[in-house]
């Protein structure tokens, strides 16, 4: 399946056996990758597949645990982004680093080293604008620009340093289709001039439009290097999300019980520049079942979580009903009092305060637990609660009541999930329950979620990990660009069908639901 890329000399850059270990988690596992001069090479994979880690290693942001990088055949050590730039690497991050109050030229000048005056920057800027069709007004303040224009600044900033390899991380995630097409034209031109491009994406159509070769990562490993134009979307989807045969779960249909959560035509505008709007979401979760929501990150999962938890309020009260009570316009405390519980994706800073002790962290869900009375904290009750969570969920702590940040990811996750499960909520909504968690903790957490459902609660699990959803979910839907697919029993889903929904090509290919 490997595509033929003819070249005479050595590849521009070659990664050999790159591994990166974070505690128990192997984010990159012996990755080999080579990029030829002038090639546009795609790096495909689900979120969490290890794309960002690999790119950060290449750009000198993080150090690999093992493996080597060859630059034009010579081994190099890239210790920092400064060294990476000196070598000829340029990177455009998904999130821009620009000063809103400064002009385009000023933003470019501050990022470059000392010898660039504002006048030289202006001159080169107009030159590059002309050559690559990157239209930019040097004197406009950044806050007046659109996302596409802001991205152009970042690209121009890289091009001013004459890069040999340009890395783009999900560049179209904030662009309109027209802006995207404009970007592709620029990239084609750059490639024709001999600049290599590493293009990171999970959008299949773009990759097929731009690239001849794509490396597909899954769970930190290279699963294939292919020519994306020679493979079908189905094949690529299967490669990205795992094998497509023999893994369909054939559970006996669970007994439907009373409805605990009903989401009815929920819509919500995006929260910011990088936000995703929710569009006409319909969802029902019944007591006794686990409902899985699959999807690639950034398709509205965190927005859906915020809407369900009440961190963002819906416009209509009846858009969301918990235990039969309309609560779309009620805050998170009110929903907790309806016996709902929530676990957000971010452990540190969202689910828990890093510098606070675990007993203090029990206060975060104070609205539904007995840790305060008439405004006063019941310190001993909070400590007792923390102790019993630690005991019931096997949380390994360095001391009796440590700060949350002292716990490993898996142990903290057990704690924040335990904090909610221990009071037996009627509804539990959890976003990415085992994100970045070691295998042992992940198993314990999944078991706890399933047990909670079997005891008569409704559990909604939002996850990017398909294996996890196939393991725990009774019903599943896929979220893509803020829209939720119909909910279907897990036995009716194939990985392929899920993959197509995740990539947004299910409708285009027609009838992928009806496998």
């Amino acid at each position, binding site marked *: 399946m490997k595509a033929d890329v003819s070249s005479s000399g050595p590849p521009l850059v070659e990664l050999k056996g790159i591994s990166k270990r974070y505690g128990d988690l192997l984010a990159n596992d012996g990755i080999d990758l080579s990029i030829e001069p002038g090639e546009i090479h795609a790096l495909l994979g689900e979120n969490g597949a290890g794309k960002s880690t690999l790119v950060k290693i290449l750009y000198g942001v993080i150090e690999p645990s093992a493996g080597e990088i060859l630059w034009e055949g010579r081994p190099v*050590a890239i*210790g*920092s982004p400064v*060294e990476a730039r000196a070598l000829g690497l340029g990177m455009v991050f998904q999130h821009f680093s620009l000063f809103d109050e400064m002009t385009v030229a000023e933003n470019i000048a501050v990022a470059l080293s000392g010898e660039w005056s504002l006048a030289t920057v202006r001159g080169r800027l107009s030159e590059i604008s002309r050559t690559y069709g990157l239209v930019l007004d040097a004197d406009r303040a950044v806050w007046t620009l659109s996302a596409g224009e802001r991205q152009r600044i970042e690209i121009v900033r890289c091009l001013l340093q004459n890069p040999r390899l340009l890395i783009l991380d999900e560049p179209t995630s904030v662009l309109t289709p027209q802006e995207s097409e404009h970007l592709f034209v620029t990239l084609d031109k750059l490639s024709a001039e001999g600049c290599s491009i590493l293009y990171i994406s999970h959008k299949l159509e773009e990759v097929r439009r731009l690239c001849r070769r794509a490396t597909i990562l899954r769970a930190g490993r290279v699963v294939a290097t292919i020519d994306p134009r020679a493979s079908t979307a189905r094949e690529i989807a299967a490669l990205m999300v795992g094998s497509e045969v023999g893994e369909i779960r054939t559970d006996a249909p669970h007994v439907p019980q009373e409805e605990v959560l009903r989401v009815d035509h929920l819509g919500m505008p995006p929260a910011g520049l990088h936000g995703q709007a929710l569009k006409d979401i319909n969802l029902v979760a019944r007591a006794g079942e686990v409902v899985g929501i699959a999807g690639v990150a950034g398709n509205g999962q965190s927005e859906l979580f915020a809407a369900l*938890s009440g*961190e963002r309020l819906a416009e209509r009260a009846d858009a969301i009903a918990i235990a039969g009570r309309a609560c779309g316009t009620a*805050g*998170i*405390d009110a929903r*907790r009092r309806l016996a709902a519980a*929530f676990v*957000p994706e*971010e452990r540190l*800073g*969202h*689910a*828990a*305060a*890093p*510098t*606070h002790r675990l007993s*203090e962290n029990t*206060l*975060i*869900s*104070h*609205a539904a637990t007995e840790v*305060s009375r008439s*405004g*006063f*904290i019941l*310190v001993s009750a909070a400590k007792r609660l923390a102790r019993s969570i630690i005991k019931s969920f096997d949380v390994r702590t360095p001391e009796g009541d440590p700060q949350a940040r002292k716990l490993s990811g898996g142990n903290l996750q057990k704690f924040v999930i335990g904090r909610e499960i221990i009071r037996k909520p009627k509804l539990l909504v959890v976003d990415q329950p085992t994100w970045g968690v070691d295998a042992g903790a992940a198993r314990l957490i999944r078991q706890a979620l399933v047990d909670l459902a079997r005891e008569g609660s409704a559990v909604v699990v939002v996850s990017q990990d398909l294996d996890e959803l196939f393991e725990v979910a009774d019903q599943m839907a896929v979220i893509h660009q803020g829209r939720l697919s119909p909910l279907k029993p897990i036995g009716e889903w194939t990985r392929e069908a899920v993959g197509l929904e995740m990539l947004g090509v299910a409708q285009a290919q027609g009838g992928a639901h009806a496998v």
Partner: protein
Amino acid sequence: MRFELMPRTSVSPVARALAPVVAFIISFLIAGFVIWLMGRSPIAAFDVYVLQPLSDPWSLQELLVKATPMALIAIGLSYCFRANLWNIGAEGQYVMGAVLGGWLALNTHGTEAGFWVLPLMLTLGIIGGALYGLIPAFLKTRFGVNEILTSLMLVYVAQLALDYLVRGPWRDPKGFNFPQSVTFDPSATLPPILESGRVHYGFVFAVIAVLVTAVILGRTLFGYRLKLTGDAPRAARFAGFNSSATTMTVFAVSGGLAGLAGISEVSGQIGQLQPSISPGYGFTAITVAFLGRLNPLGILVAALVVALTFIGGESAQILLKLPLDLTQAFQGILLLCVLAADALVSYRIRLVTRGGGK
């Protein structure tokens, strides 16, 4: 080559306790060096700054008098700062408390108004400060305006308003055209705690504020709300704490305490309204709040320490002809040293040479 701060894996409680002491000694050494550069004896300066005020009963009372407004204001500021909200305008809230409370004193001047004047004055002082503090809070929550700028700029508005009042409508007609109001009646004067002493009841208010705040911050959900808002704002929202409500509340509390400090100072210490009623207590209180590490008891101690530099600074001006600006510089050095010491207790400095430094 650059320096990096690396978090220490374990922080010894002894080091944490000793940090302010070491910071204090280092700031004295720096100040001594500056004084030596100015051609004076650092030892004589130390004697004038520290030893003499602490050995003289009059100065000791003065210490409490000066510490009172700073402690009251800094206690209020600690509510804001814990929640990562930056009220820099306590000076203005102090002035507005004095203005609104003073308004009642001037309007009951020469009448037979009784015991109710003083409590009402103090209440008005609190309300004046709180309302003035709510302006930046409202602008922040409603329009997203940076509270640092608005609260700071409102200080000048308050000062100029007071200036206008005492030069214009509120000027004492028999005051030989001096820009000051009439002297408050006894019924509008905050009495001293001891009959012959100079320390007025404002100090009692400060002590009460310290104790109440210690309970609120340590034992109540509201105290935890502030801590959580400051340390992990997203977790605070997740906990159901509305950030706008938090902002409004802490600005009202800190403005109210600054206003109480203002009216206490005017009615217990100065006895009338005049263009300047504070040597910058509202700004120095920011230093005091951080010197005391936002801990109520720590703030009380820090207020006393900073009051000492004020009194020492005044005598140094008289006895050693050292400029009063040096006192402010010294307060600044002290704050920097304490913050640096705190940082070095939790972090160690690592020198990174080019090329990784591993």
